[in-house]
């Protein structure tokens, strides 16, 4: 099992979610985050006081996937989140040791 952490542009959330649902991935967790990479921030001016805002709002999406559909999931996210501009985001794939469903106690791939 793998965990995919995807940092994506906020307005792409619905598209990525729908694309993942279409290949059978029904659950996910999202967090509203801020960050920057190569995408530059912007300037805000309040009554003459100039501030550089470096951190840009993004969505962090976390999904746990079975080994056999990892590549498919990555593919789907890449297509849906892409806008061909700087700041589209990054994907991180991490190994997962165990998954347990709280209600029933199921473990492993059954709990995903």
């Amino acid at each position, binding site marked *: 099992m793998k965990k995919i952490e995807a940092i994506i542009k906020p307005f792409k959330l619905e598209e990525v979610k729908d694309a993942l649902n279409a290949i059978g991935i029904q659950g996910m967790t999202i967090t509203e985050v801020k960050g920057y990479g190569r995408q530059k921030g912007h300037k805000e001016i*309040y009554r003459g006081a100039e501030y550089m805002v470096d951190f840009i709002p993004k969505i962090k999406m976390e999904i746990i996937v079975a080994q056999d559909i990892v590549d498919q999931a990555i593919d789907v996210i890449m297509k849906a989140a892409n806008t061909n501009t700087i700041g589209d985001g990054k994907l991180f794939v991490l190994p997962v040791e165990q998954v347990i469903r709280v209600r029933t106690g199921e473990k492993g791939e059954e709990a995903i």
Partner: protein
Amino acid sequence: MKRKIMFIMSFVLWILTTNVFADDATINSGDTAWIIVSTALVMMMTPAGLALFYGGMSRTKNLLNTLAMTFVSYCIGSIIWVMWGYSLAFGPDIGGIIGAPTHLFMNGITVNSVSGTIPTFVFALFQMTFAGITVALILGSIVDRMKFSAWIIFSMLWVTVVYCPIAHWAWGGGWMGNMGALDFAGGNVVHINAGVAGLVLSLFLGKRLGYGKEAMFPSSVTLTALGAALLWFGWFGFNAGSELAADGIAASAFLVTNTSASMGAMAWMLTEWVVNRKPTVLGIASGAVAGLVAITPAAGFVNLPSSLVIGAVAGVLGFYCVAVLKHKLGYDDSLDAFGVHGMCGLWGALATGIFASPYINEAGTGLIYGNIGQLWIQIVSIVGTALYSGVATIVVILITQLLASGLRVTKEEEMQGLDNALHGERAFEL
């Protein structure tokens, strides 16, 4: 039979007509109703208008502290006024300097007392709302770093020692009014007074930690815009109500107030658009307030074309003082009480000396109608107000420092945020 009917008819007519000439003969119900409403309008300007205007510009961690200081300013102004403030400002004149304590705790004023064409209680309460908002304006200079206990003590002393004398000078039979200085609704008494006091207090408190280096975002331009709109609404009571009557001059004051506000907003916005390439809502809201400040001393004296100029200049001047002058001179007048209220109040007081039209109000003739002397009188009143406000505020500050054991919060409290450190509250539960 006919005679009986005639007798009864004339008796009824007599009853009806004599009621008009009853005990409170000089009370005009139209004037009274309007000034009662104006009082309520101006009251709203402090805990609602100004609180939100300032609160939205404060950092989120200090929003509630700003609201708290504004709210209690009005409460303190209300209480001090009815205890001794009214008497100091409007009691029998002593040497042109101050009012006698004849009316301490409103002593001697009854439900039958009349001031002009309105009950004295109404007049006193209307003036009270001015005292409340003037002291509240000062806190705009010092948000984010003052002890709450120090602010409470400061307010009590300041209304007594600084506001009341100046109000007496301009409106209560004191030397400024006697000299012929024109201040319709408080260019000197309110705006220059509060602006100078704010600057002085901000210099004593010192700059905020991280000022000039750290980003200090306003918590909510949304709240500030709403606050500005409430201030504009209330300002109709502030300016048009200062005629103390529901008449043509009040109507004229109403007209020029709205015009100046609109011009101020557009002028600030356009200036900002040119200089910073983006018009901001903060700029539009600030410009409206600048226009309102400037028209305050002039409201019942100037005609419409003058108000177009007064508002436009106020918008540009306000922008300059806030966006350029302050950063050049380096003082931390946090929310620009001096930049907007002080400086635009100064412009308004001068503009009154220039544009006052005897065709609007026979009480005032300005430069463009041939009276060069008025401008000089205005200058004298401005300097007198600024000097006294500065010096007396320093005295109040020194006493406050003693009584409150210091004015400023600790570094830790300042970094933590005053809402948490001083009030144990959060502005938002998100």
